[in-house]
């Protein structure tokens, strides 16, 4: 199996590894870097649980190869909190609104919503729903997630 060297900046830290060509970015993050906050739900790009940011854009890390992220800046859910302990305004809003239950889809939801608020600091309900439509949550029925994004927007998460 051919392997390639990659240098990727993950959550602000540059990492260099040699990875098989076929290794997904999700597996690279989880297995090579032990960043298990990124979850794998379907491995075919539908559920959105594996969403991370690559150069600021939300992508599905299960259908991107790690080698494709060579040279990129990747942010995972572990990178949302400034110090790993303090909650970002969006994370705080998810807790306040109980916008989750089992927590499995949550990292992907947070990454999708973080990207939205960065682009659209005060989104309408329809804009929130459009952005989150690529992420499946089986627990909440989405309502408390939408409320959490609205609350985070009011708290200035997108500034």
């Amino acid at each position: 199996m051919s392997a390639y060297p990659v240098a990727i900046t993950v959550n602000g830290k540059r990492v260099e590894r040699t990875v098989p060509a076929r290794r997904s970015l999700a597996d690279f993050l989880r297995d090579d870097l032990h960043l298990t906050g990124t979850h794998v739900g379907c491995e075919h790009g539908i559920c959105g649980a594996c969403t991370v940011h690559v150069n600021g854009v939300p992508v599905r890390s299960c259908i991107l190869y790690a080698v494709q992220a060579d040279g990129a800046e990747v942010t995972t859910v572990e990178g949302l909190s400034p110090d790993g302990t303090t909650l970002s305004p969006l994370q705080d809003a998810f807790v306040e609104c109980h916008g989750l239950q089992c927590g499995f889809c949550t990292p992907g939801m947070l990454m999708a919503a973080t990207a939205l608020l960065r682009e659209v600091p005060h989104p309408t309900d329809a804009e929130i729903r459009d952005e989150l439509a690529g992420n499946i949550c089986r627990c909440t029925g989405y309502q408390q997630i939408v409320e959490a994004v609205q609350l985070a927007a009011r708290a200035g998460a997108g500034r």
Partner: protein
Amino acid sequence: MIVEPPPSELRRHRFVGHKRRPVEDRRFVLGRGRFAADITLPHLHHVAIVPSRHAHARITAIDASAALALPGVLGIVTGPQLRARTKPLRQYLDIPGVDWFPLAGEIARYAGEWVVAVVATERAIAEDAVDLIEVSYDPLPAVLDPEAALDPASPSVHPSHPSNVLYRRTFVWGGVEADFAAAPRTLATRYRWHRSATVPIETFAVTAAWEPGTALLDVWASVQMPQFPEQIADALGIPLNGVRVHFDVDVGGSYGVKRGIKHAVLVGFLTRHFGVPVSFVEDRLENMRGGDMHGPDRIFDVTAAYDDRGVVRSLRIRTIDDEGAYPGRSPLQMGKPVGAIVGAYAIGSVEYEAIAVTTNKTGQVAVRGFGQAPTNFALELTMDRIARDVGVDALEIRRRNFIQPEAFPYVIPSGTAYDSGDYPAVMAKAAALADLSELQRWRAAARAEGRVAGIGIASCIEPGGGNAIFQALFNDNDKTTTFPESCQVKIDRTGAISAQIGIASSGQGHETLVSTLLGEIFDVEPDEIRVIHADSLAGLPSQSPVASRMAIVLGDATVGAARRLREQMLRIAAYDLGRAPGDCAWHGTTVRTKDASGERTWLEIARIAHLFYHRLPPGMEPGLQTQFVVEVPRGGTLPTPDGRVQMYPCHSFSAHVVAVEIDRGTGKLSFRKYALAHDCGTVINPDIVRGMVLGGVAHGIGAALYERFIYDADGRLLTQTLADYLMPTVHEVPLVEMVEHETPSPFTTLGQKGVGEGGYMSTPAAVVCAINDALSPFGTRVDHVPVTPVDLLERMR
């Protein structure tokens, strides 16, 4: 819309019923949950599966030579190898000749059934090896339709069992024949609930490590099921105290299906066989086609006898349930509905025939509501049919048939007492929240314009408590009546409180439940209380978080433990103060003498208990720790010979009002309104209750409109990916307005009832009732789920 706790609740309690942030949420938003696939161990190996390509076939040869030559492959195991060294997995019916093992033996009985397991150093290498294994099959005729399976001439799924019928019993409760003879009207209906499931976003994952030095099998699994360690030990033939299931694993959703017993037995076998830790994380295909996680697949024939006002006297219900190739526990999903067989209605007699058949499909497993959602669907659609027949509306027919609030505890014909409720009041709240009269004006205006609009109303009883007495109801040789839950609580020498529960959680918020209740009883800030999940050897008896039972049974165990410790602390303080316990009382976290002459603080009492034996009452054991194990309230009684049984103790209730519009050109359905009123007794955490209900509604919308496991004529599953099996996204779930009502249960410590399944039980009925109201101008209706746009277009032609 935010649910406000009733004012009475806020007065009664300091923490219970108040808004509190669930304690679990913090770790999840930080990405710090610990799921089964996150567990790593030294030398961990990985499994991939060779599935059967045929719905029914004799396996004639397996050639794994190329796979075994692949670097990184440790070995393979076939069905015959595994079967020679394990016992069959547990079935809950007595069905000799139906043997269920993790891997197929000589015969594969459904497409997707596991045939060979490969163990390799990496998952990807194991998958490469799967592609190199050649399995030769001799195809056999398959049976795929549940009614066809009733035919004695149908292909036999298990030739050593007399037929494809695994269970058939007719229960008669009350004077059904006389009630039918006396009723002026009868109506016969038929419904089809197609195969769907809860499909959690996390697939099933399990890691096992056998340690020969201690003869201990450690298991980490994404599991939600009762008797999991017991079944692993039984199948592998090792003592129950040789299996340690670690319940401190976050489970990424379950809603019933995270059973994974064949997965766990397989990896338990593999880790012992190969001497390395082994992990199996299902990929989505393995999960969908061979995970044995599909839900009920039912045909209902319902006949109702009623009077000219639509008051129902009697019901005859026949249900055929397609269990797939291996039934496991799933036929019991026709047993739980016995405990709410008349729904919210005062129906005097019932005949209920339950038939379980086996077919060449993946096995069925428990799904949210344990069979009650399909049954409630059939019941509610029947009520609507009766309403049309006698010419009253959907609200009025339910009002006329509701069990009245003064009738509780109310015993239904099948022997279960409903604890409490006020169904007319909750229904009225739902109608008011929906502004039903405004919706009716909207519908009239829409129809005048030629649009297709309808309003649906449905109610639902949500039994809670998890008294799995349906085991005994469906199997005379099963006399199990104990379905316990437990909580261990200790207070350390610094006064800090910790509790241990014997289960894993899959999003229900059990840590929040326990810390809130301990905080309430101890008058201590709940966020300062630590709640941990024990492993199965350290934990006490548990039946797992099924059946909307934890608020009831874990709640009662927690309150019981807290009250016991509080009493002990008061006795310590009183003795140290030189007073009788009766002369002292708690004031917050301090014990004071009633004459206010002396006091001991929480910390002082904790230090006496742990450090100063000379100040403890004589004979008292040192430290502050206790355990409390509860049986399900009102449990402990076997069914009568005619099948009357006290099923669950608590009965939540909900009423849904739904308005939909259907596009005449495309068949696309849109929601105009979704409003519901909900009563689960005393609410412990409003956000968790709301989330459980809203999540159930979304799941019910999926069952009603989108989700179906479809097999082709050869028995191959067509909907194997999430691109084919459609789950609702945020676009498909409307804004749901919700209001709480509170009728406490007399049978629980704080009046709490269960929550978690009711939304899923009500919603398919409510949505299809709305569709049928919309279709009524066409003189047609639907009697099945899921209802697709094509179904609607056909009926609007």
